[in-house]
């Protein structure tokens, strides 16, 4: 269950990384923002978190596009350190602003409590719905990328941006759109997260490290890989927490990254 959310976050990151070429360290912060979005929507206007999740997608999508256009595009390309530091600064800016505005108190969205009895298994209501939402979004994403015109454009740009440009695809727009999508995915993931766990300004941190592990595991820019990676990481985490300890489970993202980078830097899955 957890893995599905991780997968969403990971897919967003890998999408941006692969198509736009930017490593968005602030990606985790967008998850946090998504969670707070759902929280405030619930608290202030009693918006059903399921709807917030749906709404978060377009909201964060446009937010992402704006950020890309105004900020990212100013970067002189091919400056990896610059992009890293830029997004890092953005991440610091966002979570500290959040801390300032909303304080450190843990919040939660008590919407779906209780369980579904399901053939003898007891499934937490919120967990199941979250899973369902995540799956739904994932399916929508894949369908979009495979069949829609924009989706094809994005895939083309990710494979070879120069050729795409020559074919008449507006690569800059593609990049902005993709960035928006990445952010949208993160925001949606955040909204889903708010259903299950407490939220606080620094939560982005753990998501970003897992997202990196997922992206590297699945292969850069490989969305299917990220999906698989997310599930793998989620499962690994549960297993290790259960059999060893929660603390040991915290090492997973770092270990994964190091191991994969050393043994199979292109990721486990082929594009």
């Amino acid at each position, binding site marked *: 269950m957890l893995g599905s959310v991780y997968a969403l976050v990971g897919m967003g990151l890998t999408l941006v990384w692969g198509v736009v070429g930017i*490593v968005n360290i602030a990606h985790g912060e967008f998850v946090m923002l998504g969670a707070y979005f759902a929280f405030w929507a619930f608290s202030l206007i009693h918006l059903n978190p399921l709807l917030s999740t749906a709404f978060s997608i377009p909201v964060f999508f446009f937010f992402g596009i704006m950020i890309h256009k105004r*900020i990212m595009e*100013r*970067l*002189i390309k091919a*400056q*990896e*350190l*610059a992009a*890293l*530091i*830029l997004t*890092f*600064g*953005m*991440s*610091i*800016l*966002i979570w*500290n*602003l959040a*801390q*300032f505005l909303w304080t450190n108190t843990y919040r939660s969205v008590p919407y779906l409590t209780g369980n579904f009895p399901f053939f003898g298994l007891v499934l937490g209501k919120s967990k199941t719905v979250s899973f369902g939402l995540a799956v739904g979004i994932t399916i929508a994403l894949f369908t979009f990328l495979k069949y829609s015109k924009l989706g094809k454009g994005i895939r083309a740009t990710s494979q070879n941006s120069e050729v795409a440009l020559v074919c008449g695809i507006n690569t800059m727009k593609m990049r902005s759109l993709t960035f928006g999508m990445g952010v949208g995915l993160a925001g949606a993931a955040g909204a889903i997260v708010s259903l299950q766990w407490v939220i606080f300004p620094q939560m982005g941190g753990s998501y970003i*490290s897992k997202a*990196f*592990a997922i992206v*590297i595991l699945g292969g850069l820019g490989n969305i299917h890989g990220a999906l698989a990676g997310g599930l793998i990481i989620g499962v690994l985490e549960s297993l290790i927490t259960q059999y060893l*300890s929660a*603390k*040991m489970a*915290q*090492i997973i*993202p*770092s*270990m994964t*990254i*190091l191991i994969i*980078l*050393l043994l199979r*830097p292109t990721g486990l899955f082929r594009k």
Partner: protein
Amino acid sequence: MRRRFLENLTLMSHSFERNRIWLGITILMAFLISIPFFASDYWVTLLVLILIYTVYAAGWNLFSGLTGYTNFGLAWFIGVGGYVSTLLIADYGFFWLFAWPIGALFTSIISIGVGYILLRIKGVYFAISMVALTEGTRELFGTEYLTPITHGGKGVPFVAGIRLPTLYWSILLLAFIAIIICYKITSSKFGLRLMAIREDEQAAETLGVHTTRDKIIAFILSAFFVGLAGAIHFTYQNYIDPTFAFNIQLTLTPIVMTLFGGVGTVFGPVIGATLFTFIHEILWAELTVLYMAIFGGILMVLVLFFPQGLLGWMKEKGIVPRIRKI
């Protein structure tokens, strides 16, 4: 005859300049050395921090600034150096004068292995792997398996039996040496080879530059200085724990300072560290939480508009000569 006279004049004015620079340095050092005698503890402490971060920044710049391999794992050096030194002092009763260098040596020796393994990875991936190393080590130190040695999350409160002035002079000496080494390396063939690695690693290799060896040497040097400064840092804090020691902020602050001053220059880290600490002091007093947010914003502005840093900008504008030595 006249030409001779002019030549001699030029030579003399050059040596005047040279002597003037030496004089300036001597006066500055004398001033800095004497500070504990007349300044309050507040100022000495502030200077200690500035000097620690100067070494961090210079150490980072020595490797990353020259080779272009962005080392996002500076906190790893700091943490390892800090822990080894602290544990030696706290648990085994070592004298700080010995614990510090041992901590630094340990860090640089392990960095040989780390460098050998991780420096094959290029670009962004290298940066990420160093972060992963740092995060992983932090978590590792907190696990039940290592806690018997490292005291885990409880941390290690300790007293090292060193007075503030002595600490100050130690870090002052370290910073002085570190900067001299940076100066020597940057204007040496070794430094040029590191820069060639940054410019075009493959071309450098086909021109005979032994990239693996040179990268690792720079890495080890960086590890040594940063590890040593880390040891001093935690002695100063009288406390260490994994979150504190392997904190990403310890990696990023020196990087930002170097960015601010000018990556790849000799004095950029010094300028950056000094200015930044002063600005930090001012902002912190006023704004606390919002301070970090502003910090993030400053980072973004820096990267977008002043990627070459203050010194780099000054070199570009001609305010400062465009030579490697600075």
